[in-house]
């Protein structure tokens, strides 16, 4: 596939990624569908969105088979739903589709019939903005609970402890004494219940093992009884506070539905109150295993908006940090997969031992082991200390390759592992694309798509590396793809260490308040977990007008049900582990 070879971004830009060209083609097919089009994107007429999407998806020459991102922006006069689609084989910048909806009772057609990966994302938009998606199979709130009042990402929503529209907040001493945030809160009350909810008389549903069965046996024609099991939110292997509502027939999974939001903190609302710079440490908390890579994705996005570039040395440092992050994230991931298989922590701890060394390096560079907060717009926060690069050199030339050979020999060759991982949780190629799976999950299904190659950012176009892919898309492939990616990371690290120049680490001088011109951007980077995207709308003020995170782990969960049905409950846990979800990112 074309995306494999290192090519310059200019060559990648086929004119089929140009919105104006696409708009003409749509107009030829559906004359009334396009409301407006410019280099940023195409505004499609609401009623015809589904046909247009189907046309873009099904026409072989266009082949927009992958939906990256669904989000929406609340403007004073309208709600705008934004879609990013692209053709994975072609790569390059995704095409932006927009649909306008009224602020009063907004509704647009759902894209789930075309892109199944829209399922959770549309639910999120409904949850946060109140846009109803007509024809959505299961349009319920996803991150907030069903009884929540209001749509928190709308501009007129004010959260409890609301202080001000944007940071920096005003003084709390303006009346000659200290005023606490609670007193400024217009509602003063922290907890609000919707009108239909009875907080006093609330009783949890009685949940008993002894009534298992009998009642739904007739309805389903199956001769056995089903058991509904809530796995999580407190469960040793749901990787945080994920809850899975699993219907079991004996030990076989009939259906699994992720119930999210236990770690929801409305990262995006916080992000819109923050200034651009203040958001960097918040991105650390998304996928808390990979804070460096999160920083990079965000910084890349904002830099695109500002039109600046980081100096050479800073770019190399960024790549070194991002690839070290990928390495430790994957080694933790494969350790956790083994843990979910029932191995008593040993492989995981072997992985974490290596991770400690990298975390030491991160601490030396940024001052923090996990919440690094290292990247800045136009550079990095500070140069690495003396001896840092030598230590990285030691790790990537001596320690990591040796440790990886060891782990691969023990872990991939294990018969028990093979018996449990082969042909378990298969996600076929087309389904993986259709479900918007990203990262190792997508590549294990045989799709050679890596943003570092398909839409290179930073300086990834300078390095020699392969994009490893799986063949079947089962658990075993997701495991081996991660190991192969770790080897590629080491390859990149070696090249980066050989080439890194001395010099500046920051463009211009350090700025507390950056100047971001008006506009909007979808900045993204290939995180260890997949495509981490930041969709930002700037109105020229120091705070982003809209700040949306495309979280790969969240969207990968969409396909979970597809993978687990028919497998045993033990496999469900392992398949979930092979998706490598981190709840900080899923719930945001």
């Amino acid at each position, binding site marked *: 596939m074309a995306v494999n070879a290192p090519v310059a971004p200019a060559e990648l830009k086929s004119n089929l990624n140009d919105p104006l060209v696409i708009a003409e083609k749509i107009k030829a097919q559906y004359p009334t569908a396009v409301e407006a089009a410019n280099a940023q994107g195409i505004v499609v007429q609401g009623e015809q969105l589904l046909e247009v999407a189907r046309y873009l998806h099904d026409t072989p020459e266009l082949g927009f088979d992958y939906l990256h991102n669904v989000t929406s922006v609340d403007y004073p006069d309208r709600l705008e739903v934004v879609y990013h689609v692209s053709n994975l084989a072609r790569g390059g910048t995704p095409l932006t589709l927009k649909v306008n909806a009224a602020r009063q009772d907004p509704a647009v057609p759902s894209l789930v019939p075309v892109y199944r990966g829209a399922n959770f994302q549309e639910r999120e938009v409904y949850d946060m903005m109140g846009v109803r998606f007509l024809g959505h199979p299961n349009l319920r709130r996803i991150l907030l609970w069903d009884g929540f009042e209001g749509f928190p990402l709308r501009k007129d929503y004010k959260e409890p402890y609301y202080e001000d529209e944007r940071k920096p907040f005003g003084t709390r001493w303006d009346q000659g004494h200290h005023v606490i945030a609670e007193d400024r809160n217009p509602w003063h009350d922290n907890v609000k219940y919707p009108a239909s909810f009875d907080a006093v008389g609330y009783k949890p549903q009685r949940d008993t*093992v002894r*009534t298992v069965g009998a009642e739904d046996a007739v309805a389903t024609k199956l*001769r056995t009884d089903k058991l509904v099991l809530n796995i999580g939110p407190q469960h040793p292997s749901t990787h945080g506070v994920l809850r899975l509502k699993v219907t079991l027939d004996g030990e076989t999974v009939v259906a699994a539905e992720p119930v999210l939001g236990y770690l929801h903190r409305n990262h995006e609302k916080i992000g819109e109150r923050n200034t651009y710079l203040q958001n960097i440490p918040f991105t650390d908390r998304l996928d808390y295993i990979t804070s460096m890579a999160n920083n990079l994705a965000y910084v890349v996005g904002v830099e695109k908006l500002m039109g600046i570039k980081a100096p050479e040395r800073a770019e190399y440092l960024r790549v070194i940090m991002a690839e070290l992050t990928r390495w430790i994230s994957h080694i933790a991931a494969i350790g956790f997969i083994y843990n979910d298989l029932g191995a008593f922590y040993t492989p995981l701890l072997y992985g974490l031992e290596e991770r400690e060394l990298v975390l030491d390096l991160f601490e030396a560079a940024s001052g923090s082991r996990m919440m690094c907060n290292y990247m800045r717009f136009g550079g990095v926060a500070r140069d690495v200390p003396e001896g840092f690069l030598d230590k990285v050199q030691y790790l990537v030339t001596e320690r990591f390759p040796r440790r990886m050979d060891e782990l691969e020999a023990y872990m991939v060759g294990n018969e028990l592992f093979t018996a449990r991982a082969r042909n378990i949780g298969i996600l076929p190629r087309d389904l993986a694309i259709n479900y918007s799976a990203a990262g190792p999950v997508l590549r294990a299904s045989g799709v050679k798509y890596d943003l570092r190659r398909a839409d290179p950012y930073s300086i990834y176009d300078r390095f020699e590396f392969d994009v490893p892919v799986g063949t079947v898309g089962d658990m075993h492939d997701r495991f081996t793809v991660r190991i192969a990616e770790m080897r590629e990371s080491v390859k990149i690290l070696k090249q980066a260490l050989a080439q890194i120049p001395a010099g500046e680490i920051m463009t211009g001088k350090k700025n507390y308040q950056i100047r971001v011109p008006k506009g909007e951007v979808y900045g993204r980077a290939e995180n260890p977990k997949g495509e981490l995207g930041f969709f930002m709308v700037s109105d020229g003020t120091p705070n982003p007008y809209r700040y949306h995170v495309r979280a790969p782990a969240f969207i990968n969960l969409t396909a979970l049900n597809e993978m687990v049905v028919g497998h045993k409950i033990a496999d469900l846990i392992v398949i979930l582990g092979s998706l490598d979800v981190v709840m900080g990112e899923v719930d945001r």
Partner: protein
Amino acid sequence: MEIIVFYLFAAIAVIAALGVVGLRNPVYAALCLAVVFVSFAGLYVLLSAPFIAVAQVMIYAGAILILFVFVIMLLSPPVDQGEGALKWQKPLALGFVGALAVQLVLVLALAVLPSARGSLTPEVIAQRGDVQVVGAALFSDYLLPFEMTSLLLLVAIVGVIVLAKKR
């Protein structure tokens, strides 16, 4: 000494048997049945038949009853509330029990129970070995019933497979 142990086991067995009949919760009833089996095993030991005792525990308490308990737990029948169900069975059951009691008393009163000692005295068993005695009897005098039982079990297994495959 032996007599004390005998009465101990006998008393436990009787009380547990009453529990099997009397307890309303089927799981408890099944557990009482397990106690009955185990105390019977104790009685068998007193009768110098340790093999039978162990087999009793292993097969009845350890295998068959556990499946009973299991089925009861899975099907989770409601705890019997007493009144309501089994209305007309009650007098019938009392009648049967009465008849049985009369019969028992008559037999005990009228018949002289033969108390001849068989050839397998405790001494013989101790000398030849308990398991060996059982094995020899099983494969010589009782060969036909033994093989019939095997056949019966085989048929049952085949039947189970056929039923299970149907799904």
